[in-house]
């Protein structure tokens, strides 16, 4: 895999997990889509916030 985009991998993982839990926890497509999209967006958003905070931590390297 040349040119790995860590962000795209994060987005793809979030979409899969969001869609899974949206389908699992809701009975209609509309509700499932809403929940799935919310989970996916939260996963990406929280990950970016954590990544931003970690940027300032003296972790070496």
């Amino acid at each position, binding site marked *: *895999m040349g040119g*790995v985009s*860590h962000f795209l*991998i994060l987005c*793809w*993982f979030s979409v*899969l*997990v969001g*869609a*899974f839990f949206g*389908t*699992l926890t809701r*009975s209609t497509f509309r509700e499932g889509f809403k929940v799935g999209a919310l989970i996916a967006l939260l996963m990406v958003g929280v990950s970016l916030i954590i990544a931003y905070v970690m940027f300032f931590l003296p972790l070496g390297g």
Partner: protein
Amino acid sequence: MSTSKEGGRVALACLVAWLLPGAGHWLLGRRAKAVVFLALVVATFATGLMMQGRVYIANPEQPLTYLATFANVALGPMDLIGRRMFYERIIYAFPSESDPDLYQEIVKLNRNKILAVTHEYGSTFVLAAGLMNILLILDVFDIGIGRKR
């Protein structure tokens, strides 16, 4: 009589859910969900394998690998494909040093895959696919016994 028949139906649904993600939901009449679940779990697992993700084998020196191996085995026959691709054989336990040839071969295969940039991501995808299928089996059980509508 009808209770044991019902119990058998639930057990069968759980078994087929393990054999093929979504098949349990299909058996219980939730066909649209079944197709979505199959697509999602297969996509997650395939992405993991394409990223050189690891299929875990139980290693007594690393107890957490037992949990990871359990999560992998939860994928049913798909797990066999992963093991075949990663280790070129079906293997569930890390070989002991009393079998030096196999031990060296497994260590070498692990090292080669670990060098891939996406190895950790891939392993996470493969594990996530197994955990998804565990949730699906539990969901089928809940639907089967009437706990979930």
